[in-house]
């Protein structure tokens, strides 16, 4: 008697669990499902899509925007936004090349890049955390200012590296995998661990979800925010090094332009909430890949480059509509 009674709720529970499980899978990993779907469609539409070289090509192309998007994810999880990433990338690139040419030392050039990128991010953080300026405004200012300094320094044109070996960063490979892909993967793992396994990451989620409660939980909100923007700046400098190294030059006027929009798109497709507090690094990783596949597919199918923006815009909006919103 007691046995049969216990059995029924158990079975009911199981059903509920399965249903909850599916719901959970969808809400947490809808971006991966979308990715698989687009991947399968792409492989049907173009036979060359599945080619290993093409696959690596996609990865290579998204690595720079991917690294920028990782930083953008952290910023957006904290409830902010960073519009300055593209301009800062150009500025870092310009100063890195100057430092490279002046010192003749690749290591010094890389360190310069890190310092400039993090400093720009630090300034963003300072304005936002201590100056209480909305992140949109503060980074909009930084976007204009950084581009202007880059243009002034490079006299509006491009500057090229004169040290052999610098191009190796973006153009060498291990086995058949290019360095930028490896750097992107390593950065993804690094930021993932930072967000999931450290105090810093937990604080970022808390601040993005409820800043007042985070402050009343004795979290040093200002410091964390400065850290968030500094990290974003540091990741931009990593991306800037790859971008500069790839062609051994950087354009002060066009490099990095509209990167902020691609990065924000990737983060949103990846399921991070605009207002912060919710989202995942893994989501952004697949969001970046989805954008990469779309670009690649349209190139393979000879879609006019003028129309590619339209398709991308459409996909972004569709992706967001299909994601579970609350």
């Amino acid at each position, binding site marked *: 008697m007691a046995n049969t009674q216990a059995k029924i709720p158990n079975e009911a529970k199981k059903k509920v669990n399965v*249903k909850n499980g599916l719901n959970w899978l969808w809400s947490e990993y809808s971006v991966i499902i979308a990715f698989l779907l687009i991947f399968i469609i792409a492989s049907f539409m173009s036979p060359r899509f599945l080619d290993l070289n093409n696959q690596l090509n996609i990865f290579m192309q998204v690595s720079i925007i991917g690294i920028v998007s990782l930083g953008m994810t952290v910023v957006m999880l904290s409830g902010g936004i960073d519009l300055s990433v593209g301009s800062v990338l150009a500025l870092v690139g310009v100063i890195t090349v100057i430092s490279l040419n002046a010192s003749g030392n690749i290591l010094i050039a890389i360190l310069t890049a890190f310092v400039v990128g993090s400093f720009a991010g630090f300034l963003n953080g300072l304005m936002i955390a201590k100056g209480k300026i909305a992140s949109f405004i503060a980074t909009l200012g930084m976007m204009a200012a950084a581009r202007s300094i880059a243009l002034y320094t490079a006299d509006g044109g491009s500057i090229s590296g004169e040290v052999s070996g610098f191009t190796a960063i973006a153009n060498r490979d291990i086995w058949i995998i290019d360095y930028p892909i490896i750097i992107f993967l390593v950065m993804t793992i690094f930021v993932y661990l930072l967000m999931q396994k*450290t*105090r810093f990451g*937990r604080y970022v989620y808390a601040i*993005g979800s409820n800043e*007042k*409660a985070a*402050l*009343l939980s004795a979290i040093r909100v200002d410091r964390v925010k400065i850290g968030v923007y500094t990290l974003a700046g540091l990741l931009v400098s990593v991306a800037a090094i790859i971008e500069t190294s790839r062609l051994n030059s950087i354009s002060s006027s066009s490099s990095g332009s509209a990167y902020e929009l691609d990065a924000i798109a990737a983060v949103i497709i990846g399921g991070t909430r605009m207002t912060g507090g919710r989202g995942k690094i893994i989501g952004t990783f697949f969001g970046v890949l989805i954008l990469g596949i779309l670009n690649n597919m349209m190139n393979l199918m000879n879609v006019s480059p003028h129309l590619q923006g339209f398709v991308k815009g459409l996909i972004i909006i569709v992706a967001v509509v299909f994601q579970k919103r609350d």
Partner: protein
Amino acid sequence: MSSNSFITMNNIEKAFNGVPVLKGVSLEVEKGEIHALLGENGAGKSTLMNILGGVIEPDRGTIEVNGEEVRITDTRSSQSHGISFIHQELSMVTDLRVYENMFLGSELRNKLGFLNVEEMCVQTSNILAELGVEINPKKYVRDLDTSYKQLIEISKALLHNSKLIIMDEPTSSLAEHEVKRLFDLMRNLKQSGVSIIYISHKLKEIKAVCDYYTVLRDGNVVGSGEVQVENLDNITKLMVGKSISEERFNHYSELGPVALEVTDMMSEGLFKAIDFTVRKGEIIGFIGLAGDGRTELFESIFGYRRKYSGEIKVNGQIVKMDHPYQALQAGVGFVPKDRKENAIIKDLSVIHNMSLSSLGHFEKSGMLQAKKELNTFQYYKEKLNIKVNNPRITIDKLSGGNQQKVIIAKWLEVNSDVIIFDNPTQGIDVGAKREIYQHIIELAEQGKAVIILSSEASEVLKLCQTIHVMYQGEITARLKGEETSEDEIMRYATGFRKLRYNQAFR
């Protein structure tokens, strides 16, 4: 059924994810009746009212309005049947004016299609006058007291010709004189034939204003009847399944050294000349009406507000509180009021909310140890009787009482010497309330210094050895818990009497 009944709900059933929440609930409300809907959090009150308000649809059961069966599919159809739902969190647009809020979504327009501001203002004034209040309809809602916001919500319901108004814990953020105003209003509404369903945890209020009651427990109606005939103790017994008397929670802890000493603290326009001490093992209370400055005072002591002068000593050391982090380091913890805005991080899991202020305890070479967090949570879950099956769900899915316990666990894990509780039982049902009082007593017995801020005299009377009464930013009296009464406290809280605090206490 009597022909006088306005609304009848029959055998309503509702399940979420296969878990039944309502198991055949029936409810009848007559015209011009104030009906109390009682029950602990999770008993199904909100679900039942959400069905009536058109927020969700029932799985089974019928609803009759004026004897005719109706289907309520959304909030609009609920409104068209004359039902208004005033939620616990007021849904006012604070940056709009009073009349704009009143007519939000149903604005009056003149022939040209422009807004007819004058007419809207006149109608607003008329309705407010009927309720016996005078507010300029062009005032911004953000400049009004909470009680007035409540009034505007009710006026809005009247504007839509509502015949039934559902009030979900309307008094939880009101001071006592505001509550009185609300009750007068409810009686007026009743006279004019409007029915009210009143959800509250406060039995005294039920006794004061309600005619009939229905008690829900675990999705069933466990009792109903006339309020005036029934003994309050019995109703409480029905709600929790056991009796809770208005006892004083005695505790006999040895008073240790002074843990927190505040001297001559003031902040322009908020509070002034604040002096008090609290010793280890002692529970002291701060009570006052809205605008007394007690919350602001303790937010300053916790470092949340920076602009203050005066001296704060924790364990004999002078500390300048510029940031809550300094308070935490010095050994002061703070469980804030308005849990949803100030305490819980709704996107974080239950476990992560618990560990948020003491993540250092769970780190190993810079990495958080999920296992350790879980084990610690299990310890507090047991200790504080937190009801949650899967602690990885986000905290907003728990009931108010359980959320509060998680927040308390958070500060227990920090292990501060001084713990400040601001309105610790706000929006919490009777059973959980008692548990929380018990935990507060235990803290004192373990040698913590505990400070309780409350707007309910009965709460501080239950727990505190010393009660500080505040009025307009000043401490007007210090009373001994065993020797004072609610009446005496209220006299000082309303500014009717004022003691020179130093002589008062010695």
